[in-house]
Structures are given as C-alpha cells and as structure tokens.
C-alpha cells in the first residue's frame, strides 16, 4: 500500500524498507542479478560479443543510415544540435555570411576586429592607426558621411596647464556652449563638461550655495562667477580607482578615457573630488549637421551608452597646437592655456607672477588648473 504513489502524498522516502546487506554490488536484495551466475564465455564467444557491441549495427546498415540513424541518448543529441545551430547563426551574422551584401560583410568584419582589439595604451602606433581607420570606415558605412579621426600621440616636452582669471569671468557661458559643440556631447541630456558657478559676494567659494544653472542678465549685482571642469590632475584619483584601466594620464598631462574599454562602473565618478566626470546614461544623440568631424580617438569621437566621458582639454585641438574651444570662446579672456614646461609661455608667467591657487589643495591630487585674480 505504501508503494502506491498518490499524487498528493509527499514522498520523502521515509517508508522505504531498509535493504538488508548482501554481498551483491547492485543493491538488489531480492531479485537475481545474475552476477554470480555468469557463465564463463569462451574466447571466441567473447570476441564475437565484443565486436557485436561496438559495430554490430553498422554491419547491417548502409552509409546513409550509419550517419543519420545513430542511436544516442537525448542529452548528447541536444548538445550536438545546439552546437551546430550556434555555429550556423554565428556564420550568418559574421563576415562569412552568404546572405549579406559586401558592405554588410565589411561592417561585420570591422565590428569583429573592434571587439577583439586590445587596450589602447598597449597598442603600437600602427595598431592605433588601424583602429582609427576602422572607426572612420565604420562611420562611413553606417551613415555615408566622412569624419577624420586622429590617434596622435602626446608631443614631446609638453605638459598642458590651464589658468582661470576669476576677476574677469562675468558668467557669460560662451565656454560651455563652445565646449558642447566642439566635443559632440549628448544634446538630449544636455551634457556639459564645464560648470560656471554664480556665487554671492562676501561668502567666498561656497559651492553649496552657488548656482550653476542661472538664466538672468549677467553679471548680476552682488555676485561673482567662476568655472570648474576636469582639472587634469597630475595625481588623479580617478585613474587609481579604475578597475579596468580604461582611463589614464597621458605624457602631456591630459587625463583621457578609452571609450571602448570603459565598462561603466562609475567608480571614477565617485573618486573625482571636483565633479569632473560625466556618464552616458543613454545613447548620446547629436544632430547630424552639428557633429564636429575633426575627431581624436581619445577625445571627441562619438561615445556610446554606458561609458564615462570628460573634458580632454580638446585633445583634438591642443595636440595640433590650437587652444581648447573654451579658451577661444571666452569673450573676456579669462582663460589661459599653455605648455607648463616652456619657461617663456604665458601660463608660466601667470603662475610665477600672479597670486594663483587651486581647489582642494589638501587632497594631494595636484590639479593642473589654477585660479588667479587681477
């Protein structure tokens, strides 16, 4: 009775009769298992049964049936079927597809190579050249338009520095606007690298009560203005915490991000004491006619969803000898940019002759962005 398996009974196996110990290895206490009663086979009989077990079926089946009528258990059948389906799907979607156009195949080839390229820092110059060419070609295939991307390395004997004159800033925000246009930033979330803070006179640099999104005539009575952005520290905390080494400080002092290596953990965003970093929560969108076509791999090329970005001192401009867009755009000349290692540069004169200071000096981040006043 207890062996009847009623569907509502919870069969925990408690009523199982304990098996009495037997010397038989198969555990069956009652029935015969024939293990003791095996006859001794003669050599010929043994040989015949062995051959029969291994290729018995095949001796009678024809070739077609030998391949298609193989007996196997369900598990290995399933495994083999899924393996072949996956290989087929992979082949169709890759460059070896038979149903894609030439362009589609080239696109797939580029995407494959881009997926498996190494870390940009470890690439040789030719590899950097190749990846930049791939990206340019990929853009051309996708949109039909041409861009020019550079992978220019840091110039020798150059260390970029920046100075901001807080007496001159009147809060016009030309710098913000120029930066957005130059660096192809997402228009939908209105991403801005630069923040201009309006602070009350007499309270000092009080970032808690400062307003960085004002819209009234400037300069407003009783207020003063100053700007912040990534300060390109010489001892950057954001670089130390990156778990995948997707961000680093280049030899000319610019802290850059490799958008293809970043995994989007935002640890650097937490580590930066100056709010220099921005994250792409959504896919960045820039209207086609506003895209800046002069790009640099580490700078203003189009980012994707889920990667960090930040001010790069307009790496596509500064490595060609030009000033960053914010420096060019400021109408009052409050921003100064140059090479810190050149003793005759204007930035060095500012550091040596004006009263300069940096933000959060005690953190030891060594930012390369100084503030001064007239």
């Amino acid at each position, binding site marked *: 009775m207890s062996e009847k398996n009623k569907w509502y009974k919870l069969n925990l196996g408690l009523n199982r009769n304990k098996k009495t110990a037997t010397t038989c290895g198969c555990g069956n206490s009652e029935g015969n298992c024939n293990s003791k009663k095996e006859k001794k086979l003669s050599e010929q009989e043994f040989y015949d049964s062995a051959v029969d077990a291994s290729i018995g079926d095949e001796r009678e089946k024809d070739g077609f049936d030998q391949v298609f009528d193989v007996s196997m258990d369900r598990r290995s059948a399933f495994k083999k079927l899924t393996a072949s389906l996956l290989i087929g799907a992979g082949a169709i979607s890759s460059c070896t597809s038979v149903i894609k156009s030439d362009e589609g195949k080239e696109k797939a080839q580029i995407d494959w190579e881009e997926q498996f390229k190494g870390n940009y820092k470890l690439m040789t110059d030719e590899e950097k050249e190749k990846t930049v060419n791939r990206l340019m070609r990929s853009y051309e295939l996708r949109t039909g338009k041409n861009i020019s991307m550079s992978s220019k390395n840091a110039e020798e004997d*150059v260390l970029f520095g920046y100075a901001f004159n807080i007496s001159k800033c009147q809060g016009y925000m030309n710098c*913000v606007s120029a930066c957005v246009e130059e660096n192809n930033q997402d228009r939908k979330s209105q991403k801005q690298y630069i923040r201009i803070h309006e602070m009350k006179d007499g309270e000092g640099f009080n970032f808690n009560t400062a307003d960085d*999104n004002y819209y009234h005539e400037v300069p407003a009575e009783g207020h003063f203005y100053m700007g912040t952005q990534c300060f390109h520290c010489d001892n950057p905390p954001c670089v130390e915490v990156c778990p995948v080494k997707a961000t680093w400080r280049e030899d000319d002092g610019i802290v850059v991000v490799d958008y293809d290596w970043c995994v989007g953990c935002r640890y650097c965003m937490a580590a930066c004491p100056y709010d220099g970093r921005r994250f792409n929560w959504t896919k960045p969108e820039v209207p086609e006619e506003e895209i800046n076509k002069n790009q640099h791999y580490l700078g203003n090329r189009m980012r994707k969803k889920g990667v960090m970005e930040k001010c790069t001192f307009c790496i596509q401009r500064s490595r060609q000898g*030009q000033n960053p867009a914010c420096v060019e755009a400021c109408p009052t000349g409050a921003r100064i940019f140059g090479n810190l290692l050149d003793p005759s540069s204007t930035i060095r004169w500012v550091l040596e002759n004006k009263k300069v200071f940096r933000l959060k000096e005690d953190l030891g981040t060594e930012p390369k962005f100084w503030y001064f006043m007239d």
Partner: protein
Amino acid sequence: MKDKHLKYFFLTMLLMVLFSCKKEGEYHSVTDKIKAEQKPYHGKLTSEDLLTGTDLIKITEGEFTFLIPERKGQIKSYECIECHSKPFEKKKNANLKKAHWNIALKHANSDIMNCATCHNENDMNSLKSLTNQKIDINLSYKLCSQCHSSQFNDWKGGAHGKKVAGWTPPRASKTCVNCHNPHSPSFEKRWPVQFNTQKGIERNDGLGH
C-alpha cells in the same frame, strides 16, 4: 604572548614604511615636475599655420617679444588725413557737418578725457601721448598703458587678453583694441549663452546636487 604582539606590531610598522614611499620617477607635486623637466619648446608644433592670413607685427616691450595684429588695415576710414586735411582748429567751424557723429565717448568723464586726449591734432593719422609725443596707430597699446599700467604689465606677461591662435610659439597676442572699443571699452551686461533645461528639470524633481 606579549612579545609576539610586539613583534607583529613592529613588522606591520616596517611594512607600512616600506610601502608608503612614492614610486620612482614620480614627483610629489606639479611644480617639482615642472622644475625638473622644463625645457623651452622647440617641438614640431607651431602657430604659424594657424596665423596665416592675419597681418602681424613684432613688438618688443621690456623682456617680452611677441606678435600683435596690425591695425591700420583693419580701420575702414584710414588714412584719416584724407578727410582731415586741415589742422584741427580750422575744423571747428559750425558750418561743416559733424563727422563721426556715431562715436559716443563712454570711457572717462569730460574732466579727464575728450577726443584730443588721444587723437593727435597735428597728425590725424596718429595718436599722442600725455607729453604730446606721436604714437603710431599700430602701437596704440602704448597710449592705453599710460593710465592702465597694471593691465599693460599683465598683458605683456600673458595674463590679460587673448591669443590670436594657439598656444605654441611664436606667441601672437591680441592688442587692447582687438577686444575693447577704445571709445566705449567696457563689456556690456548680457544674457548667458546657455541654459540647461535638463538640469532645471532634475533639480525640480530633487535629483540634482
């Protein structure tokens, strides 16, 4: 027992000391790095390509030598003597039409400044200094520096004003009149160029910081 704890303590202290030193080759501050690695820039980058097309003249003021944009070619009605052929006094006739009527002088009050403060009545093509010395219009900064000496010092060094193009040598800086209208030099109040509506929305929802 106590000895073991003491040993561990000293071992930890030793390890901390060993690991707290900075990596070799890295500097403790940017200024140390600058002092150690500074070198006058003689690299490949130059501002010359960026400056093609602009007329520049070289000036030397004190210890600084740099380029500034030429001015005479930028003034529409230069040469002034084409109209101002007669000396200043003769032009004070009420019959003649008042020229340059649209130039309002918003620079200093009438106790300090009028047209003749800067413009040279003996040579209308040039300006004049406080001691009646002729100042060429291309070098008009010499005139401004008489009153604005601190801004002049800053401009010579590079802390005041803007560059014509680029950070690389040769240095080409804009002069006073490239940004300031000499008859009305101050910057007017204006509205900011940008307003971030997305930030505004986020702050309203309490998501900002």
